């Protein structure tokens, strides 16, 4: 082949922009020694810092850890915990574990759909609320459980859920 491929030293690759949060990502990349086995850990750090994984971030992490972009993308899409889209201002996670399911989690999702018109995994058009489901929060004693912006609420009723959503959504929408 006539073309030469220029290989950049992955340890010297630069973050996509000046955002200070990249320093956290760089710290993890250094800690895992630029090794491919640190891919999941690094993606965790990116998601913790930025809230989601975009193509730019995946490209940077892939280069720094010497893995093909396809593998970084493959891992990011394989695991449910990683998201490629930014979340809304508020998040509402409905637990769909067995205990929550038989104690009324489907009714809660139906109420959300009725009030906001969105299904799990979606964000309201105004970017205010994202609705997600969890496999099991492990708070089965509190079924059905919902996490409102990191705070776990137990024995949730559709009425309580509606009130919480109303607080997050501006009245005109």
């Amino acid at each position: 082949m006539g073309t030469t491929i220029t290989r950049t030293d992955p340890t010297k690759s630069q973050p996509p922009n000046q955002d200070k949060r990249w320093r956290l990502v760089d710290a993890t990349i250094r800690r895992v020694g630029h090794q491919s086995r640190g891919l999941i850990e690094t993606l965790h750090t990116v998601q913790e810092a930025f809230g989601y994984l975009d193509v730019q971030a995946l490209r940077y992490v892939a280069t720094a850890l010497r893995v093909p972009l396809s593998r970084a993308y493959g891992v990011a899409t394989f695991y449910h915990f990683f998201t490629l889209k930014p979340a809304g201002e508020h998040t509402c996670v409905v637990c769909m574990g067995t205990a929550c399911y038989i104690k009324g989690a489907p009714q809660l999702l139906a109420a959300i759909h009725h009030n906001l018109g969105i299904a799990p995994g979606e964000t309201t058009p105004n970017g205010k609320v994202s609705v997600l489901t969890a496999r099991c929060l492990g708070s089965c004693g509190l079924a059905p459980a919902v996490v409102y912006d990191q705070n776990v609420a137990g024995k949730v009723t559709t009425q309580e859920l509606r009130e919480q959503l109303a607080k997050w959504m501006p009245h005109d929408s």
Partner: protein
Amino acid sequence: MTPEELEQIVEEQIAARGEVARTVNVCMAAGCMSCQSQSVKDALDKEVAGRSMEKKCQVKGVGCMGLCAEGPLVSTDSGVLYQHVTAADAVEIVDGLEKGPVERLVCPTNVPFFQRQKKIVLENSGIVDPERIEDYIGASGYGALIYALTDKTSMQVIDEVVRSGLRGRGGAGYPTGLKWSTVAKASGKQKYVICNADEGDPGAFMDRSVLESDPHRVLEGMLIAGYAVGASEGYIYVRAEYPLAIKRLRTAIRQAERLGLLGTNICGTRFSFRVDLRLGAGAFVCGEETALISSVEGKRGTPRPRPPYPAQEGLFGEPTLINNVETFANIPPIIRNGGDWYAKIGTEKSKGAKVFALAGRIRNTGLVEVPMGITLREIVFEIGGGIPEGRKFKAVQTGGPSGGCLPAEFLDMPVDYESLARAGSIMGSGGMIVMDESSCMVDVARYFMEFCMTESCGKCVPCRVGTYQMKQLLDRITNRDATAKEIGQLEFLCELLKNTSLCGLGQSAPNPVVSTMRYFPEEYKAHVEDGKCPAGVCGSQANE
């Protein structure tokens, strides 16, 4: 850390306990934390400080006390347990230390829920502060490790575990001692110990509770395992969905490193061991050991055919011991008290006690540890307090998506690995979901099949395509569009998946369908032939 230094910490802890006349324990595990137990603890701290009683009365954050449904829970050193405590109750509780218990908050402890339990794994749970290593050491923690390192050879340690009869608590029940000796015999330049804390079964929270309540016990179990099999590195693969467990594990590892219980030349011996955390990222299949290894290596969590088993070729191609959290947590008491002591508990083939997470339509939801061989009736009706609202028991689901639903006729069956398997379910990791007549068993089967469908990793065709097809069929049944022929197709797919899937996920995915078809055929019949859902679940607004 030498044995003498450890002894010194124990004595200091006992002396410190002697100085403090009273102790108030506040449950700081996830269940109670989500009912604001932090504010209860803050209020108690403030109340004690306000009365300048800090020297006399200690307010301690502890792990899970078990009765999660009645949280936040607070206990005192005189054995009083308070339920549904709020921050406003702090004054009365502190008053109560002298004047006697606050009657309106008291939770009776002379009931089967507390009396019938046999606590081995949970012995420290709700008693020690999970964020202080000294507290764990004060409760004879790390004593088993020192004993193993100084008084026993690695073969003797394995022998003790073999004699205990302990079987893997992750669900499959493989003899732990046998696994250990296989790894010990395997040759490799580096061996690894992995703790499987990827508790993915919906409706199970035993491991989370153990990690949150007593993280050092799991570390100690791993250290002993590392010594026994000749490993020097360990990983704990923990779900990212358990932030509190992760935080406490990180603290525990740091503290153990500081005291020299993790690191090089532990207790002045040649044994070195370090432990690192790896966070899962929400993939149920990673509970399967080869998929878990793949995930620890930073790849997609897909399983591979066995053999070679991880004991021969595991993490990075080296011999690897993988055990579940609860299995490791059983190790320190086994080494401390001897394998024979453990083997006296339980049944002939299933030794010891097992932690179960009781949830669903049951009065006392929470965490219990019971000896093997206890009957389901005792667990559900005596310990669990039965079904609330005067409803009728319908089924108990064990083993999560890999298990089955057992009807009332099995209530008097002893709980052990073999009996559960014979009845068409599995022991599983310990989730126990009780259902009453308001649950539709076809809908439950559909729920688990949907779970397996989304969690299938996609590597092998029977599981990837089969779970989808079965979910479609179950959708048609719950929508009451199915024909009798489709029931036959469902049965055919159950067999196919069981026999041809690559890993446990696909092989056991039909279990909920098979068990509900076997024990509740009339419900399937009602959906297909009469177009009715007897429980009134299918077709209601929420399930449309």
